[in-house]
């Protein structure tokens, strides 16, 4: 009488020689002379760290890296097509663009306040703050 384990193992006993060959090949090619820990100190620790932190979750790390690469590519593509960046390539461009923005703001403010007598010189230069006495006079006459 046999128990199930004995029955199962005896049924497959004839495969033992082939299994011996498999075992020896694996030990020779993947263990003997090519071990993880010929230096079981720091190298073994680093390899174990690599295995546990990165290799075991390699798919997740690859997914994250892909997402970041896509974000970087999109960001760089957006930078090359936008006009402020193109203007920044010219020398002195930042000051000129600032002047243009400020003059546009002055123009819009003048339109809102109903002041249409703004001179072209004012459009090119940013408005200088007026003295307080003049402001008081303007308020009295408004």
């Amino acid at each position, binding site marked *: 009488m046999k128990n199930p*384990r004995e029955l199962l193992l005896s049924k497959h006993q004839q495969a033992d020689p082939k299994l011996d060959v498999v*075992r020896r090949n694996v030990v020779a090619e993947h263990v003997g002379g090519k071990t993880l820990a010929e230096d079981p100190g720091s190298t073994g620790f680093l390899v174990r760290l690599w295995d546990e932190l990165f290799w075991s979750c390699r798919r997740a790390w690859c997914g994250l890296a892909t997402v970041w690469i896509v974000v970087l590519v999109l960001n760089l593509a957006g930078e090359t097509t936008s006009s402020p960046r193109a203007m920044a390539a010219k020398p002195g461009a930042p000051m000129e663009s600032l002047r243009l923005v400020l003059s546009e703001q002055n123009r819009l403010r003048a339109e809102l306040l109903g002041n249409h007598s703004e001179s072209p010189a004012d459009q090119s230069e940013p408005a200088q703050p007026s003295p307080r006495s003049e402001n008081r006079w303007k308020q009295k006459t408004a």
Partner: protein
Amino acid sequence: MTVMTDSEPLPVAEARGGDADAWDALFHRYQLPLYAYVCELVHDEQASLDIVQETFINAARHIGQLREDARFGSWLFGIAHQKCIQRWRRQRPDSDPVEMHETELADREKNPADWLIGKEQEERFMKCLAQLTPAHRAVLLLHFIEEFSIEDIAAITDAAAGTVKSRLHYAKKELRQILEETP
């Protein structure tokens, strides 16, 4: 070549250190039970040899992932089990060899070593084993071949402990009926 008995402690610590003899002893201890398990699941001798080889290679490469040395056996069978599932999915991509969750049943069955099968029942036993679903067959083989605990079998097959218990109960019930029918 070192031949280990079941009672000897496993030289896993030495294997972690790259000792080729330790690896040889570990693989020799498990090569036949592992092959028997895989062959009863996939029913293909050459595929079973390939799976055993791949399992050994994976174990040698990723021994760092094993947290407890005492669980080397269940860890090894877990790798082999996953390779069997990958093979099933390659053959039948739409089917899932793992059944849905079943109701939990108490397991009050005998020790696997207490099961005794007469010569005249051997063929019927093997035939009945082959007729079980892959999920039931897997838990029964793990229970019989290596006498793994419910928790170990659950870890190997990536199933809940309750599911493993119910599958084991059902599979043993089927087998017992066959064996008791034979005079």
